[in-house]
């Protein structure tokens, strides 16, 4: 399966928005059912890409949260897979943070 850089970037951006929201939901003790379903859909679409494993890890975390189980150990797994994905993405895509590169052009591509 060949995935373009643009497709990978799009998957990463969806994953990141969902991971941020998942963290927010857990901090707020808010329902995560819809988020878990959205992450599950991303996981299916991301098969064969760098985003597959992080999406799967995030979905497991949300499933456990949904079941009312302790998620502390899962947090480390999510963090590790997120960091790994972020490192991979930033080898081909510019860092998406703002105000990124306050002093000049990207130097970390």
């Amino acid at each position, binding site marked *: 399966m060949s995935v373009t850089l643009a497709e990978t970037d*799009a998957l990463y*951006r*969806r994953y*990141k*928005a*969902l*991971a*941020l*929201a*998942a*963290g*927010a*939901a*857990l*901090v*707020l003790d*808010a329902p995560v059912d819809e*988020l878990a379903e*959205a992450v599950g859909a991303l996981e299916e679409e991301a098969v064969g890409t760098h985003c597959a494993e992080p999406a799967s890890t995030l979905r497991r975390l949300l499933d456990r949260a949904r079941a009312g189980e302790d*998620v*502390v150990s899962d*947090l480390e797994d*999510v*963090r590790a897979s*997120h*960091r790994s994905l*972020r490192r991979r993405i*930033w080898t081909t895509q510019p*860092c*998406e*943070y*703002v*105000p*990124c*590169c*306050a*002093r*000049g052009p*990207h*130097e*970390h591509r």
Partner: protein
Amino acid sequence: MADYSIWVVEYARVNEFARGLLLYGQWNTGTTIAPYCYAVLKSDDHLAVIDSGYNHAEFGKVLADSYGVSDWQPPEVVLGHLGLDPADVDTLILTHNHFDHAGGVEFFPNARVYFQEREISKYLWAVGLPDRLQWLTSATDPDLMLWLVNRMKQGKLTLLSEETEILPGIRCLPAHDTHTFGSQYVTVENERDGKWVFAGDNAYVYENFTGAHGDGRFTPIGLIFGSVEQCVLTMEEMWQQAGQDPTRIVPFHEQNIWSKFPSRRFDDSLHVAELSLADGETSRVDAALATT
């Protein structure tokens, strides 16, 4: 009321920071030195820190390198300049969820964290937005959010939504829809020397208050996720809280703070400014008495 000793500690700096980012509208006016700082408040009963800095690893390092951040040191070293230990910090107030302010929660393992609920909940709102609007979420990272989950699971996270006195004399005040969705600023009322205002990133430098042209007309910061109007009105709130005395307002990216207050530059090039010293407390900026 209590009496806090107050220090502003530099933990890193940017030597070429675009003035246009510090001062709205000052595009193409060159660069300046911008320290990265947090504040340490010490009373007989509490050790509190306002903002945490970041961890110079992983995405913190990537962002820092892209900004040209240099001379970073962890809280162990930075608080060590004061003879203090991050493990003894019992209260950590985060002004907002950007990496250079909230990216170091892990360094303060025993602290209760105080944060605005809106700074979290807006990320749940944002996930429903189309990708073309995700710029709104692009200044933070899941890593930061997951540290907060951890702290919440430990029972050491307090989310605020209104003005709250979290310790005697220390108040967190919402500054919503300003620099970020759910920013806050902090006031410290000392019995001995009155009120201090810690701006977070609702002001980067004194010039935000004195005006980019020195005319006393507020010039807001150059990076605003909320509204410019709310930024300026929050500056007015802080201005009034500070009794219209800009030296009573503490911006965390202001290099002139080292000349406005007694300060010391340590061997690692980082500064400490001593804003207030409680009775019986030893100065950390008197080289003869300093503990390094």
